[in-house]
């Protein structure tokens, strides 16, 4: 009897181990199941490269190029802000800051990571957007730039903590060797430690990009949501994620609009899959 119970629990353990694979496959199947129906009357190329997203006009147009560019603009802006600042503060926290300050800074970054994105979106609406509006004399501060700045802060905790890990895991002997040769601390940091931590840094950048592309609520709230081809950062844009979040509520189940939103889901899934595989490859290279 006892043997039997043990066999049962070991089967449950094995199945739980397999569950993650099952869920990834299920997510993909359900996205495909609903999303592929769109392509019975919309061509794949006109979906991806179409310049018009008018899902409820007659006939509807499902071109997601403005949405892809919207996501691209916001992501690019966020990365330009978050990567240098993130790496610099990770270096400061890991190598320069005194111990007492290090702990405070680390808790501050953890605090930032714990704030839900909906709250950052709200703060963006009430503080950041009005500032940008005044500074740049815009009719509305809800722009790609506002999204980029807010998302930079969402990517920062990921980037800082992974870069810091990478720096800390550089063998001590590298640093000691460099200092023994008479290098200053700064020379050691940028000639020895940073190169040695480079794959970790690349992984951090990839994961930061992944977080920014996948972020939904904050961009929905502060990028202004205009599905037009973006040309500047001071213009409202609409991202892939925000489009799904904003429109699924009103899309009729089984309509081509509904299918198109699932097709956007497929695009997002594929992008995040590629980014995660790349990030993992960089992280694994580090351990070798």
């Amino acid at each position: 009897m006892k043997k039997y119970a043990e066999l049962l629990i070991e089967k449950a353990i094995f199945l739980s181990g397999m569950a993650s694979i099952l869920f990834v496959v299920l997510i993909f199947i359900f996205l495909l199941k609903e999303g592929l129906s769109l392509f019975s009357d919309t061509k794949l190329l006109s979906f991806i490269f179409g310049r018009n997203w008018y899902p409820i006009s007659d006939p509807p147009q499902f071109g997601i190029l403005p949405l892809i560019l919207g996501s691209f603009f916001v992501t690019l802006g966020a990365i330009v802000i978050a990567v240098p600042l993130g790496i610099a503060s990770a270096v400061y926290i890991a190598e320069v800051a005194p111990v007492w300050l290090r702990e405070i800074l680390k808790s501050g970054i953890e605090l930032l990571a714990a704030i839900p994105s909906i709250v950052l979106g709200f703060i963006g609406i009430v503080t950041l957007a009005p500032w940008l509006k005044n500074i740049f004399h815009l009719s509305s501060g809800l722009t790609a730039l506002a999204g980029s700045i807010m998302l930079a802060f969402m990517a920062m905790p990921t980037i800082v903590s992974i870069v810091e890990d990478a720096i800390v895991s550089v063998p001590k002997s590298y640093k000691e060797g460099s200092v023994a040769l008479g290098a200053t601390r700064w020379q050691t940091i940028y000639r020895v430690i940073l190169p040695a931590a480079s794959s970790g840094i690349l992984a951090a950048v990839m994961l930061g990009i992944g977080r920014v592309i996948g972020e939904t609520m904050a961009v929905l709230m502060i990028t202004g949501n205009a599905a037009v081809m973006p040309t500047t950062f001071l213009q409202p844009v609409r991202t892939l994620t925000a489009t799904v979040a904003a429109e699924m509520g009103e899309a009729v189940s089984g309509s081509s609009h509904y299918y198109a939103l699932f097709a956007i889901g497929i695009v997002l899934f594929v992008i995040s899959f590629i980014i995660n595989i790349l990030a993992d490859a960089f992280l694994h290279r580090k351990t070798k």
Partner: protein
Amino acid sequence: MMGVKKIEKIAFSILFVSTIFVITPVMLIAAVILFRGVPAVSLEFLFSMPSNGMRAGGIFPAIVGTIYLTLGTALFSIPLGILAAVYLNEYAQKNWLTRVIEIAIINLAGVPSIVYGLFGLGLFVTFLGFGASILAGSMTLAIMTLPVIITATRESLSTIPNSFREVSFSLGASRWQTVRYVVLPNAIPGILTGTILGLSRAAGETAPILFTVAAFYLPRLPQSMYDQAMVLPYHIYILSTQVPNVSPKIQYGTVLTLVSIVFILNITASVIRSRFRKRKTW
């Protein structure tokens, strides 16, 4: 030519200023939420129903909805996550299958939250016929939380010294007995820490619950797990974008309530972690 010491000084100053740029906004955000939220929160605000199309009254149903949803998420994700971590750390061989599981977990962790929303809508709400409900929302959030719980549990299991397992085996215990009576009890603090952190993230998520559970305005408490529910994150979204002329008091009060729930969970996790570190004797 500049001296190396001078260059170092400049470089360190730049690093310091960058860090200030990162940390100051965090402090400002925290300060704004506290200073504007605290005067807005009262017992009446927390425990009364919203009224007048959410422009008056409190947020009680949204608090209850958030708690139900977080408990539901825990119910599905904790057993599955812990067993999966036990498999990976105690049973799995180092082969291609294990590698595929690891890649699957990494991808689950990186899938955009709105894609979870679509998946939950497709599988739980429509295909399995749960409708938009606490059940569908909890299951969607549970799958999203799974990678956090698995990773944290696995890390906790891997810190248990191998000698513990060897002693147990040498006494004739089976693998499962070793896991059940030796490994798991020693790993509990680490598992709790990771699990609570995962749940605190789930409690603040909005995108996955948009079409799987969240109700726009439902001024009563949910009756069963097949009910829709109001939840705090979605309520903040509605208050700040969909309803005109909501008083900032109600907005900041709701924001502070959500942030407090998330932080109470986070602080609980770090208290458990620090206690465990002090007590650990091996």
